[in-house]
């Protein structure tokens, strides 16, 4: 601890974010907390034989509290606060002070935590009573199988001498066993072990993970048939094999947490294996440009879509991922017409490994409204079945997913829930490269905390639990196949929403 500052140094005016309480009657001075905290909060003072804590460094990740063998630690938001002010909240004042001290853009991780209306919490589901028997998923088949890709308007058959032949050749479609995919999280942003856990879980459950824009390490290409591989503005890790081992190729235009901003992987995270996978020099910042510099228009996008289709012999669906911005519906329609087979839309609450806080918290629109308006727009134009619609950003439980599908999504990407399943506590420090849970870090000491066997088991359990809950909800509605929920807004009613909100969501108010 420094008490004397040099003249040019500034004394920090920041308050600590968290209070670290250690119950002396429990602490056995085992120093587990010291070893667990990558931020260096805990230390042992031999002279006085006491454990100390540098609270200023604590990010509230709860790693030490969970690991402490005697449960001696309580970590909670720091009670010290400024005079209450509805306008100048503690966070606003602290952010401003931080900038006055650093002169920089404030970076953060995870998704937007601001209290924009969460529409999921204002939508209730239907259930069958009397006129329509509920179906019991424990006793009867309940189908969640989903196909991603372009669909035909109609099928042609030939009937020769009693032989039925399918004449139409289907567009490439990818089969998944539950409408839940893992969102794009790159190797680099997350640790090798976290990345591998996602791949293992997707392959075990019969769904897909998404490589993000960091490539797919050679030895993990065996998981290719469960991979959505991204082609983003930095083109990191892109080679022909990368595309051809994949189930789906995804062009990343934007991300819900940072619409209009490219990826940023700081040099410290670019270790040797990452540099090999991304095909960039070790230790250099991996900066993806904000736009794709070969896409300045919808025609350019179309060119890239078809280039990727050529490269994969028209055998794989091509997805285009965009952030949900104001005119997302019109953009989605353009993307469908440009030849994409899948459109992924990522809402304002979508997560990130690193983004300017000001962008994360202020740019974009909630995914609920975006799903509704994109689905409606594509239907009005008669092209809804030309694309599958995957929604991302802001799913917290299986009911959110059921509501998303009823609004019109084919499937959802989950990022934050997958991270939480692996241990994440949403401390929002992904961008620091220090993650005490071994998820969002390249520090070998930290990342080895995540055992892929165990983490993938947690992920599979999550998929299983949510899928079972979805089946329960479907059965309650008297539906036994997920396709009968898709776009079925009759199953939804709004509570506490204004007229315009009901209108955009295309649902009735409760009681209507």
């Amino acid at each position, binding site marked *: 601890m420094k008490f004397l500052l040099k003249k040019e140094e500034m004394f920090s005016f920041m308050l600590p974010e968290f209070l670290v309480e250690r119950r002396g009657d429990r602490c056995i001075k085992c120093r587990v907390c010291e070893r667990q905290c990558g931020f260096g909060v805990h230390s042992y003072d031999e002279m006085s034989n006491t454990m100390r804590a540098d609270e200023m460094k604590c990010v509230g990740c709860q790693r030490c509290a969970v690991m402490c063998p005697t449960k001696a630690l309580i970590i909670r938001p720091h009670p010290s606060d400024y005079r209450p002010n509805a306008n100048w909240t503690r966070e606003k004042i602290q952010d401003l002070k931080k900038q006055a001290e650093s002169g920089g853009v404030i970076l953060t991780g995870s998704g937007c935590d601001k209290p924009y209306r969460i529409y999921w919490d204002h939508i209730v589901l239907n259930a*069958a009573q*009397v*006129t*329509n*028997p509920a*179906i019991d998923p424990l006793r*009867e*088949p309940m*189908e969640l*199988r989903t*196909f991603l890709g372009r*669909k*035909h308007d*109609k*099928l042609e*058959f030939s*009937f*020769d*001498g*009693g*032989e*039925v032949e*399918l004449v*139409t050749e*289907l567009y490439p*479609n990818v089969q998944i066993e539950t409408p839940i995919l893992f969102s794009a999280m790159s190797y680099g942003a997350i640790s090798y072990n976290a990345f591998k856990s996602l791949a293992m879980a997707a392959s075990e459950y019969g769904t897909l993970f998404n490589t993000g824009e960091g490539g797919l390490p050679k030895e993990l290409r065996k998981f290719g048939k469960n991979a959505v591989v991204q082609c983003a503005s930095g083109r990191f890790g892109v080679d022909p094999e990368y595309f051809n081992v994949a189930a789906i190729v995804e062009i990343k235009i934007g991300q819900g947490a940072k619409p209009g901003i490219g990826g940023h992987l700081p040099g410290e995270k670019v270790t040797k294996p990452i540099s090999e996978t991304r095909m960039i020099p070790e230790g250099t910042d991996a900066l993806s440009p904000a736009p794709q510099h070969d896409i300045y228009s919808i025609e350019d996008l179309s060119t890239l879509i078809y280039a990727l289709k050529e490269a994969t012999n028209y055998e794989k669906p091509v997805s285009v991922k965009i952030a949900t911005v104001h005119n997302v519906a019109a953009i989605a329609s353009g993307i469908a017409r440009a030849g994409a087979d899948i459109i992924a839309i990522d809402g304002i609450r979508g997560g990130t490994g690193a983004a300017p806080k000001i962008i994360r918290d202020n740019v974009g629109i909630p995914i609920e409204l975006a799903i509704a308006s994109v689905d*409606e727009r594509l*239907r*009005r134009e*008669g092209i*809804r*079945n030309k694309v599958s619609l995957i929604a991302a950003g802001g799913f917290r439980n299986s009911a959110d997913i059921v509501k998303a599908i*009823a609004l019109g999504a084919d499937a959802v990407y989950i990022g934050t829930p997958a991270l939480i399943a692996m241990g994440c506590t949403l401390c929002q420090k992904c961008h620091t490269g220090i993650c005490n849970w071994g998820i969002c870090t390249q520090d070998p000491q930290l990342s080895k905390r995540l055992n892929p066997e165990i983490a993938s088991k947690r992920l599979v359990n999550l998929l299983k639990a949510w899928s079972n809950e979805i089946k329960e909800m479907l059965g309650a*509605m*008297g*539906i*036994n*196949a997920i*396709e*009968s*929920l*898709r*776009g*079925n*807004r*009759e*199953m939804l009613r709004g509570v506490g929403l204004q007229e315009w909100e*009901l*209108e955009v969501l*295309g*649902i*009735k108010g409760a009681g*209507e």
Partner: protein
Amino acid sequence: MRGFEKVHDACGLFGVIDRSGSRFDSDMVVTAMKNMKVRGNGLGGGFAAYGIYPDFKDYYALHVMLETPEVRKDVESFLEKNFDVVNAEEIPTNSEANVFRPPVFWRYFVMPKNDEGDDYVVSKVMEINTKIDGAYVISSGKNMGVFKGVGFPEDIAEFFLLHEYRGYMWIGHSRFPTNTPGWWGGAHPFNILDWSVVHNGEISSYGTNKRYLEMRGYFCTLLTDTEVMAYAVDLLMRKQGLPIEIVAKILAPPMWDQIGRMDEKSKKIYTALRITYAPLLINGPWTIIVARHGEMFGITDRIRLRPITSGEKGDLFFVSSEEAAIRAVCGELDRVYTPMGGEPVVGRLYKFEKAERRSQRGEVFA
């Protein structure tokens, strides 16, 4: 678009065809409906009869329901503009019949101007139903007609003097709505061109089906999910030309488990159908009877939550919610058959059973 109110109901269904094509009166269908009285509650009944207008068999017979007499002007000027109207008359009714607030019904035998065909008629029907307030086209086929309203089926039959018509195929419906819209247009059968549908059940996939059909230009205006059935069948059978055996597998497809156990060829076809026509899977409990000239078929949902039975006697083929209703009109049957979920039972005119139609049923769908 926040959508219309949907009516929930449960019902009794009956259909009969003389496969030799001989025409007969409404006696059987009315008796059968009476036999299933418990399946209705007097809030809806109706019939479709095929072969009843031989004198005008080349013209589209539009049965139009007029909620107020004044709206007839608008309908007629619309028809004059878009069709050659060869005959127009009020449908004769019995004012003594025990029915609830009957509107006025007119029928027009028309031919589209400029050689336009079925699609044109469909679009004009949609236009009347959505744009002319208080006027609804309740049937629009050639040489057939729908008679329906609020009341028990036998009262509806009496109201429309049904015993005066003779057809080779009849279907009937008795309705038990859970609410009381008291609206004549909401009764069954639903019809477009010569397709008629009667339905028992509640479609839990209604929202999905409806929005898919809207994308295909069908707008559900009659406030009931049966309409969805009628439009789905029109799209698949008339527009896309798929045979009943395939359409059955779209509306009520086998489970993925079953598909997984099929041989490669069947697996491929069934998978393609489920992928492509997923939005037309009709979920929930339902049975329908669909009729068009020359044939009718009955089918129930994939897990058979609502009843259906078929029977045969000589040239007669029956399909009904209950065997008792068939027995009530034909005590001795050659064959009684209760199909599996999703398995269609089909009654066709013999002349339609010939080569071309048989070839449409392959072994995959046998």
